[in-house]
């Protein structure tokens, strides 16, 4: 355990020494996962006894932390850890149904920065591991969808592109608005339909692609 702790301290120390820039980002996320849409649409279709329909996963919020490593080249490398959260809530008489989706993305990124002092434009290409966690609450209680299972997990890979403009402040401090697009071609989440529509293989596939777009601001340290 001590060896592991020492390794972690050394790793993060090296990480910070080598890093040229640390960024904290926040923004709004738009998400489109067609198979998850199908599961929610089928849920709505099959339950005419619910007056208010379950909204699709659409807009959420996200934050991320990024480390860009030092280099004299215009191309730099970095890592980021991002988290997004989306909610779908439908309140009906005696039946409030809340779906919560969390997505965690560790990302390797390539950061291109125009060294021309007149332009702060930069772009980043990212390759991410995507981990999704979906839970459901009915009338305030966490929903057990299959014998003690409360969450439907998913795993997949993502490619992304971000474009931002960096305004230098004092020293290393910077501020940059950005837009980002990301595509997950395959996210395996076999229990999502079971959690949302309480069926398996009736409403959707066990995997889904995901498109998402983000708009936000980044603060460089």
């Amino acid at each position, binding site marked *: 355990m001590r060896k592991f702790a020492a390794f972690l301290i050394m790793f993060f120390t090296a990480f910070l020494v080598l890093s040229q820039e640390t960024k904290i980002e926040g923004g709004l996320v738009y998400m489109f996962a067609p198979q998850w849409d199908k599961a929610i649409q089928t849920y709505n279709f099959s*339950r005419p006894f619910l007056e208010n329909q379950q909204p699709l996963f659409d807009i959420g919020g996200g934050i991320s932390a990024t480390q860009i490593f030092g280099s004299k080249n215009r191309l730099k490398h970095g890592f980021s850890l991002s988290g997004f959260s989306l909610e779908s809530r439908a309140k009906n008489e005696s*039946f409030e149904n809340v779906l919560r989706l969390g997505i965690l993305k560790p990302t390797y990124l390539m950061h291109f920065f125009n060294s021309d002092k007149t332009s702060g434009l930069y772009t980043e290409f990212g390759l991410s591991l995507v981990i999704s966690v979906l839970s459901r609450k009915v009338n305030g209680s966490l929903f057990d969808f299959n014998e003690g299972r409360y969450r439907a997990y998913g795993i997949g890979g993502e490619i992304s592109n971000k474009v931002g403009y960096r305004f230098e402040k004092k020293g290393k401090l910077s501020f940059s608005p950005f837009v980002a697009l990301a595509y997950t071609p395959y996210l395996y989440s076999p229990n999502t339909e079971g959690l949302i529509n309480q069926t398996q293989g009736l409403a959707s596939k066990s995997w889904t692609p995901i498109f998402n777009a983000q708009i936000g601001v980044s603060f460089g340290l």
Partner: protein
Amino acid sequence: MKRRGFLKQSSLLSIGSLLIPSVYMSACRKGNLFSDIDYKGKVVIVGAGAAGLYAGYILKSKGIDFQILEAGANFGGRLAKLTGFANFPIDLGAQWLHGKNNILGDLIKKSETKITLDESDAKFWFNNQLVTELPRDVNIFEGDNLPDISFEEYAIQQGLGNEYKFVVENLAGDQGADASTLSVYYNNLEEENWSSGDDDFKFQETYFDLIDKEIASHVSDKIVFNTVVNKIDYSNDEIKIHDINDIVFQADKLIITVPISILKSNDILFQPTLPTEKTNAFSKIGMGAGMKVFLKFSNKFFDQNIIGGSICAAYADDSVGKAQSDKVLLAFVMGEQAEYLTSLGSDSAITQALLGELDLMYNGQATASFLAAHVENWTTNPFIRGAYSYSTVGMGNARAIAAQPIDKKIYFAGEAMNLNGHHQTVQGAIETGYREVIQLLNDVVK
């Protein structure tokens, strides 16, 4: 271009490139399937059981014209209710909610229907005595690498001797089958898809009440009772559905929800004939005999569950989960045992046979405190003819083939057509009801 101008334009371009498609995609994404459907055709549903009622309920919610043809004088199919026999209402058909993690669980919460977890204890009739535990674990029919042989054969292979015969028969009876015909492999395979939860619940009122109040009430004006369909002509664009009185109903689309026993017995003549692959699939899906006998006593001498009788492998205290507590014991008789009791020829003979077994178990207390009986024999009901579907040896993908629509005109629903592991259940029937409406509307919009 000056820096400020570049920044302004590039920012607007970036935001626009993101937001415009997002707003556009949001607008395209509908929260419901077929939200703009405007289908003017007529849909006829054959059978007013859970699947047929729910298919009608969904069609109504979409504003689509439909009619339900029911052979009997009541709706509900294998859901029915008896009042006046005891001081609580009795479920003559489906009784337990098997797991509440399903669409009916949602409906129960929404309608605030009262259900109770059935945690009743069981005793086993084993070697002519009532015991609380069996010498050996009989849960051998789940797991990997199971063979496609019958429960009976597998039990013998695994060393469960003749003394376990009726305990195994009870396990098969839970699946609506004889131990000699239920496949260990396919039953396990289908059970693996089960996702409703393990707990069983009982209704304070009845299962029938839930379906009546929350589903049938929306479509009851669309049901034509006492309409026994005997011929379906789908050779032209318009489907003609004939009943035994030569009344003809016309439809653009047809959803058949009758029990698999009716499809197997060729009671309905299809013109043109159904593909051989389809009729073979029907024949591979099992449906055994089933009956429920309610025995009312003056004293509660019996245990909550008694498993392993040679006349009836499963007795259950029917008052569990009810607000009142008349002493009613349910004899849940399946498969060969139901066939045997049916062969006795009268309700009184069936009752006497069951009382005889209970007297043996409880030293003559059954006959001494017997008050009344009600026999509900689903096997002799001409529009049901059995309990529910089960997985036979060599069944393969029969359910999937049986459930395939024909010529984008005829759709098949009902518990036997459930492919999600929820066959044999009311929620399974309901799932096929809305599944087939989705299929039908997909065919309409294509």
